[in-house]
């Protein structure tokens, strides 16, 4: 590629990490950051052990347990045997392979995609991978960050590289001020509703436009986090002053002269004028309302003022079967108003919406109100530091006074690998990222919403338009 050709943010980060381009175009790509957790790493460490290999760069690697640890009483250890074995296996492996590890009882412990940016581990312009699809989160900083499988985890451990073919460039542009009552979660749900769950397959999505620019880093991370739900492995947002202000001073971020050098480099990363995207999609923020998913994939989404769709206009036989199955699984009838749907459980947390800004938004709605009778409402901060800050700011107390359960940080009810699950037939308003069948528990019915919409559902007992709660 000639130096003069205008390049996208993705092109620049990709080019800077190519170790070698093989004959057929596959690249050996250098990886700046490898985040490791307990669920997708044991077989990779085992592979290294069997081949007599070591980690090439433990100094670019960090491990934390987040997926299946309990949110209550963790100082007493993990009761579920298979979960405990998985965490103990990680704890043994990090010692054997000399990997930096944040222990479960450390304040800095949390969901890997929350603590990466929070501790300054993830930085603009880096390549960052993790055996988890929501690694796309870190792209909010202007990093190229994507999820990998366990074989690739082992590959990165052994070589600090991945074999990759370049992805294509896709641009999703959102313009205009965000309407009252809407947030980054509504933006990304609207995007997925528009382009579909496979809309980004084979691409990296760069989010552009003044709506995106206007989001704080937490909001940008929410958008980037759910890129994978639109089929794109990575989402990216050009680093700007908002990014730099966020990164500066964090634990692992460069300091002093190193900061100035880093900053100069990061400022060269945004997409050049005239760079070409393979695909572009445009949305107007004014059209976005508070969203609620109704089906079992994230593209099955409507504004809270909408109704459950039916089979009208769906001609493809496979699509009709799928929609009918979604309606049956979710226990819904076409034409039902979303605001008439009662909820049993509310979950506020996850790598999508477990940051301090998300908890503040939920508390603003919950303040002075009570969780409706019969509703179980759970708040799981994304990290120990988020939890501490929420307690210091008084947010935790507001939520507790309203009747929310206040828990220890981890992935929790997003995927129900720990004891936090919903039961068959229960309806849950969740700030997480996936509404797949059985995701939060066998037979559980998940509706994805923003933190303020989740709080609104908790205090009214049904989906409610947060704009009307004031």
């Amino acid at each position, binding site marked *: 590629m000639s130096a003069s050709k205008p390049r996208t943010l993705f092109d620049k980060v990709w080019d800077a990490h190519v170790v*070698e381009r093989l004959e057929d175009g596959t690249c050996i790509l250098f990886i700046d950051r490898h985040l490791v957790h307990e669920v997708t790493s044991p077989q990779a460490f085992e592979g290294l052990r069997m081949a007599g290999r070591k980690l090439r760069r433990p100094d670019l690697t960090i491990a934390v347990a987040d997926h299946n640890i309990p949110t209550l009483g963790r100082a007493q250890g993990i009761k579920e045997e298979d979960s405990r074995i998985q965490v103990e296996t990680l704890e043994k492996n990090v010692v054997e392979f000399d990997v930096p590890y944040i222990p479960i009882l450390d304040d800095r412990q949390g969901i890997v995609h929350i603590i990466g940016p929070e501790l300054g581990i993830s930085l603009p312009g880096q390549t960052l991978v993790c055996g988890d699809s929501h690694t796309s989160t870190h792209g909010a900083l202007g990093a190229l960050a994507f999820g990998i*499988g366990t074989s690739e985890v082992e590959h990165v451990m052994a070589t600090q590289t991945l074999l990759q073919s370049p992805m294509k460039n896709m641009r999703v542009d959102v313009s205009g001020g965000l309407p009252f009552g809407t947030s980054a979660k509504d933006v990304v749900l609207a995007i997925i509703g528009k382009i579909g769950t496979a809309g980004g397959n084979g691409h990296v999505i760069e989010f552009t436009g003044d709506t995106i620019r206007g989001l704080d880093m937490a909001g940008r991370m929410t958008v980037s986090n759910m890129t994978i739900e639109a089929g794109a492995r990575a989402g990216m947002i050009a680093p700007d002053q908002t990014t730099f202000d966020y990164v500066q001073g964090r634990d692992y971020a460069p300091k002093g002269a190193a900061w100035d050098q880093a900053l100069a480099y990061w400022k060269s990363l945004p997409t050049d004028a005239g760079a070409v995207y393979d695909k572009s999609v445009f949305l107007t923020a004014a059209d976005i309302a508070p969203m609620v998913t109704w089906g079992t994939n994230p593209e099955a989404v409507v504004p809270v003022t909408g109704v459950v769709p039916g089979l009208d206009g769906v001609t493809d036989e496979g699509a009709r079967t799928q929609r009918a199955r979604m309606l049956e699984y979710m226990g819904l009838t076409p034409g039902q108003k979303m605001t008439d749907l009662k909820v049993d459980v509310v979950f506020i947390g996850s790598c999508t919406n477990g940051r301090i800004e998300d908890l503040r938004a939920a508390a603003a709605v919950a303040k002075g109100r009570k969780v409706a009778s019969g509703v179980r409402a759970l708040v799981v901060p994304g990290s120990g530091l988020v939890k501490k800050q929420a307690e210091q700011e008084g947010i935790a107390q507001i939520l507790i006074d309203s009747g929310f359960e206040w828990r220890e940080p981890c992935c929790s009810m997003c995927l129900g690998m720990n004891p936090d699950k919903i039961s068959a037939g229960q309806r849950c308003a969740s700030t997480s990222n996936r509404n797949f069948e059985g995701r939060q528990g066998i037979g559980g019915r998940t509706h994805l919403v923003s933190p303020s919409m989740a709080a609104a559902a908790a205090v009214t007992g049904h989906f409610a338009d947060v704009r009307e709660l004031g």
Partner: protein
Amino acid sequence: MEKFTVLTGAAAPLPLANVDTDKIIPARFLKTIKRSGLGVHLFDALRYDKDGKERPDFVLNQEPYRKAEILIAHENFGCGSSREHAPWALLDFGIKCVIAPDFADIFHNNCFKNGILPVRLPRAVCDQLIDDSKLGGNARVTVDLERQVVIRPNGEEIRFEIDPFRKHLLLNGLDDIGQTMQHAGALDGYEAKRQAEQPWQPTLSV
């Protein structure tokens, strides 16, 4: 990793779009530290009722598909999480090839790392193969990777495209890590250059 050359076997029809990784293998089965033994949980919610009994209407609970080695599905197969437990579960069940109009990127990658061949064919062709597969025990499909063809039960050959590098690795059952390590010199050079040009890049320790 086992080589993938020519596969002839029963093909199971699964005419669903957006088959997600939670459907292929629910998260509660990911609490393992091994790669094997996941086949019994493949498509758990579709395959078993709430008492753990087989649902007779699910394709993999029917003959001859109990021994299916090929699966044919609709668009965006394998969407969702990065869990390699999804291809591990397919492989442990005995499925070595999935044919669909398209695949989610991470799942697609993960297949190749485990000797599973994902074949992209247009939706109309997939539907034709699904019709073929409903013929039952006689409906054996052949997938020839070297020649890049799927052979229908009636002998018709359908060509498919595949990345040449991935084809090479699959045909020879080659391990990616070994391949990359042959480029150790380039990697040493890259790291030295990175250190010189970006001395500000922080390292990690706890």
